[in-house]
């Protein structure tokens, strides 16, 4: 998100500099499952998600974008009810989602478990190779002449006469305006400015298998959201679904929870039985930031005119490149194509 905003700002004539505590794109975008599915987007965020998909499509091969189509499956009557209710609303919001019969599903995806009770399909769904995020944005930043610093561990932010001074252990950067787009680290970042943002981080687990013969061509989801499954062109299978690991952003990286992992993989096996003997090569976690109403933070940091916040998007991987552009426009004082989300709004009581 930070990079997309910076590129937009540069295009509008500003001189941004991007600072990351580690490698660009390794905080979240580089470590998730890469799913681009309108079926898991919030109803009100659908217009943003649709435009997000268009952004990813234009990024194309450089990010390994593949529009495969996606299915969401229900295995019980309760799940089917959930599926019908929710997908209908998402379809009304503009996503090309339709319900498909078992025979259509079986024809498209013969290796899926045969106990499916209901299924929905969206032709716009697919995935990108999340690992390529960093490489992609570094290249774009360089191409546009936008400065960036990686491994910049921010220690302090101080106001100065015409802006702010941001310091790390051995350098300082001066800027007139600031954009905080640090995802799960937004809470500690805004705390430096004396602002408390109700940012929480989910610790989502992803696993990847060794290369396998092609078993599935679409992105597969589950009515409860507890599974995403996709097989990349090189045959490796990525398994996600938001199963929770341990850890906090302040501690650095999260850790997997073995019980969580077990359930995640068991569900994957239930849905695609052929993977039972496939070997898992790596499991890891990535942080997904959110606020109590699960809508984005995109606007001015409460109490500031020239410090901005962007994050907690709920579907941040998908929507990030688009909302980053909107944010860039907002900072350039242009009208944004779609409304942003005031970080100073009232939030409901946080329910864990």
């Amino acid at each position, binding site marked *: 998100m930070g990079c997309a905003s910076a590129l937009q700002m540069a295009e509008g004539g500003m001189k941004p500099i991007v600072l990351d505590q580690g490698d660009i794109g390794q905080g979240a975008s580089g470590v998730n499952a890469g799913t681009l599915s309108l079926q898991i987007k919030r109803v009100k965020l659908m217009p943003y998600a649709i435009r997000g998909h268009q952004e990813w499509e234009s990024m194309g091969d450089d990010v390994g974008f593949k529009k495969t189509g996606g299915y969401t499956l229900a295995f019980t009557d309760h799940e089917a009810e959930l599926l019908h209710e929710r997908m209908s609303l998402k379809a009304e919001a503009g996503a090309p989602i339709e319900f498909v019969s078992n025979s259509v599903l079986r024809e498209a995806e013969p290796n899926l478990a045969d106990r499916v009770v209901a299924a929905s399909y969206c032709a716009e769904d697919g995935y990108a190779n999340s690992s390529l995020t960093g490489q992609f944005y570094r290249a774009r930043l360089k191409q546009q002449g936008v400065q960036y610093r990686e491994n910049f561990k921010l220690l302090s932010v101080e106001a100065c006469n015409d802006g702010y001074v941001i310091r790390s252990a051995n350098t300082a950067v001066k800027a007139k305006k600031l954009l905080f787009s640090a995802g799960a680290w937004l809470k500690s970042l805004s705390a430096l400015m004396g602002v408390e943002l109700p940012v929480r981080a989910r610790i989502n687990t992803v696993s990847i298998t*060794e*290369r396998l013969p092609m078993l599935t061509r679409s992105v597969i989801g589950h009515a409860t959201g507890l599974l995403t499954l996709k097989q990349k062109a*090189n*045959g490796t299978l990525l398994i996600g679904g938001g199963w929770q690991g341990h850890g906090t952003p302040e501690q650095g990286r999260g850790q997997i929870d073995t019980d969580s992992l077990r359930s995640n993989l068991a569900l994957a096996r239930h849905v695609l039985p052929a993977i039972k*003997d496939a*070997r898992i090569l790596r499991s890891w976690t990535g942080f997904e930031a959110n606020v109590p109403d699960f809508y984005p933070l995109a606007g001015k940091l409460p109490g500031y005119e020239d410090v901005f916040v962007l994050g907690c998007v709920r579907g941040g991987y998908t929507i990030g490149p688009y909302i980053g552009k909107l944010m860039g426009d907002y900072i350039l004082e242009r009208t944004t194509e779609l409304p942003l989300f005031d970080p100073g709004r009232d939030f409901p009581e946080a329910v864990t």
Partner: protein
Amino acid sequence: MFQLAPNHEDDIVRTAKVNFTFDGKSLLAHEGESLAAALMRAKQLHISDAPADGAPRGLFCCMGLCQECVVQVDGKTIESCRLQVSQGLHVSSLRR
């Protein structure tokens, strides 16, 4: 008698030989020896193909790490340096 570089080849007593197959080819091995050794003995150096570019691969680390000697038995992938040969073992290679 002091031998500077003794050859102990003939002093080694091994178990009886058993049959196993490697991609359908019938081979002999001493019961219980590692599949890696059995394939080496049969001069079958090319065990797998590299996952990315399909290049021929064989035994490299002999301690279960490099994954280049992997084969399939009963649908399960296992390193041949960690598998013992028994009578009637059917091994499928992952060569293309």
